[in-house]
């Protein structure tokens, strides 16, 4: 396919992924109108003031010094030097595994969760004849067998399938999505009939495109962030033992971080408000202290990850422990940064590095290095709260390499 055709496809896909105007969007237009009027009044007032000061300046002979340049970043307060990343097998021996790159029937798959060092929850990503996309299976890597848990498919509807999976505490949770339909389900990891936990109220023309899902402490919890309508988007929970799904009070606009903590992150590059967190069990609230006064900042209960024009940085929730030279990405389990390095490469340009995981607890840092003899690689972090990273090489498509972070203490 020519690059022009690929660009057309990308723009079309991005348009389809755009959120619909939310309930506050119209009010935002009025805020912009008000801001413009205020700005015009301010400009007029400043014009008068500038004229006055300009005239005064011609009369006053003042010993002037250039204004101090304020660096928005704090002075170095790094707790420890950020180490150079090394291959995962060196950093965390015993956590790496090799899996087949295809299911026993030849189908393609994605790894979704680790049940134990030899057993994984996976989802089929290929299509017929190997099997339908949307199937959730348990893969036994020691015996090289699979067991089908769920076939979440709809004949004639290629858009229908599984968009999120989580597994823990003997249960597998998954979210099905199609045009105009979506639901959260539970099924025992040993097999059985799936139980619908909740329907998702969807926008008219799409299913949920982005949804966080976790099983922990006897609950399944989820937070859809786009493609789901309703006046109160937020975080929902249901007990694994049964009972209705309910929204966590006060969770409007929040997403999951390390359960039971929820977070309202700052995504805007102009944001000055700090992220806030809410404990879904106790109702405790925490507010981050910004080490850098403006810009995007995403937080877990203990850590925050930000990005400014110099690159990514880390800080503790209370604003201390500022450190740079770290990868950017997502904080998982309040301990790891799953991401990659990102450094300025000139005006309007960033250079992305290799996939990395940074252990906030120990400062250790693993990386998937490029190797010329292996061709390019594809990788995934499993999605959501999954504590895994896996990748494959172009020259070795029959093999996945995986790091199981549940083994790190």
């Amino acid at each position: 396919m020519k690059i022009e055709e690929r660009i057309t496809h990308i723009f079309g896909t991005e348009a389809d992924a755009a959120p619909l105007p939310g309930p506050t969007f119209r009010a935002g237009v009025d805020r912009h109108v008000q801001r413009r009027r205020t700005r015009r009044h301010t400009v007029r007032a400043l014009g008068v003031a500038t004229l006055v000061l300009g005239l005064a300046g011609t009369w006053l002979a003042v010993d002037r010094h250039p204004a101090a340049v304020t660096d928005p970043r704090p002075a170095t307060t790094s707790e420890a030097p950020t180490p150079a990343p090394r291959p995962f097998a060196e950093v965390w021996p015993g956590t790496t595994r090799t899996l087949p790159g295809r299911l026993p029937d030849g189908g393609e798959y994605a790894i979704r969760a680790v049940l134990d060092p030899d057993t994984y929850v996976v989802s089929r990503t290929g299509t017929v004849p190997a099997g339908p996309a949307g199937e959730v299976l348990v893969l036994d890597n020691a015996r090289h067998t699979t067991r089908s848990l769920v076939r979440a498919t709809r004949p004639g509807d290629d858009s229908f399938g599984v968009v999120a999976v989580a597994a823990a505490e003997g249960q597998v949770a998954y979210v099905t999505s199609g045009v105009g339909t979506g639901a959260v389900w539970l099924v025992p990891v040993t097999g059985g009939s799936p139980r619908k936990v909740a329907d998702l109220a969807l926008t008219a023309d799409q299913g949920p495109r982005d949804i966080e899902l976790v099983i922990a402490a006897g609950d399944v919890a989820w937070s859809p962030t786009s493609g789901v309508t309703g006046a109160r988007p937020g975080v929902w929970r249901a007990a694994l033992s049964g009972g209705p799904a309910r929204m966590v009070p006060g969770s409007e606009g929040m997403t999951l971080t390390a359960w039971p903590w929820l977070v309202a992150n700052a995504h805007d590059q102009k944001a000055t408000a700090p992220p806030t967190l809410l404990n879904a069990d106790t109702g405790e609230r925490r507010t981050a202290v910004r080490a850098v006064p403006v810009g995007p900042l995403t937080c877990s209960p203990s850590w925050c990850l930000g990005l400014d024009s110099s690159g990514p940085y880390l800080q503790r929730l209370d604003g201390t422990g500022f450190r740079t030279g770290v990868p950017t990405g997502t904080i998982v389990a309040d301990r790891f940064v799953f991401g990659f390095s990102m450094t300025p490469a000139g005006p309007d340009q960033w250079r992305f590095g290799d996939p990395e995981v940074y252990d906030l607890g120990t400062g250790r840092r693993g990386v998937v290095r490029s190797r010329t003899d292996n061709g390019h690689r594809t990788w995934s972090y499993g999605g959501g709260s999954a504590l895994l990273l896996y990748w494959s090489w172009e020259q070795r498509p029959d093999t996945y390499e995986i790091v199981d972070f549940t083994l790190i203490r």
Partner: protein
Amino acid sequence: MRDLTDDGFEEFFRLRSAALLRYGHVLTGSPHDAADLTQEALARLREAWPRLRQRQDPEGYVRVTMARLHVSWWRRRRRERLVRDVPDAGYRDGEPDLGPDRALARALAALPPRQRTVLVLRYYADQSDAEIAETLGVSTITVRSNASRALAKLRLSPEVTTLEGTTP
């Protein structure tokens, strides 16, 4: 076309805000910047509404405003420029399903705003180079030059070659 008299702004907003937000999303590559850009353009439309409603092409006004604003805003903010949000790597369930074009999408997001805007107008809005020139208030030579540089940059982008795998 519907008569947009008796103010009519709210009706226009109700009918077209979703499409304009989609356009903003493609221009900026970010839902947050898209909302900001679309709201600012609609605010300008609101102020100009008594004059523009007679012309009955308010959407054209908003789209031209958005394209020009995007270029000028980003010129001012270039030191703050981010590539989307704090990004996640790899394949996440919620990302648009771009398949093998994921790396190319990232390279598109890293283009200078004028170059990306030219590509959006050419390949998404399906405008001719002359129409793009009129939208952005520049010459057709400038349009072709920006498009050519953007395509060359994409073909040579380390993002594309590294993540898509023509070389490791």
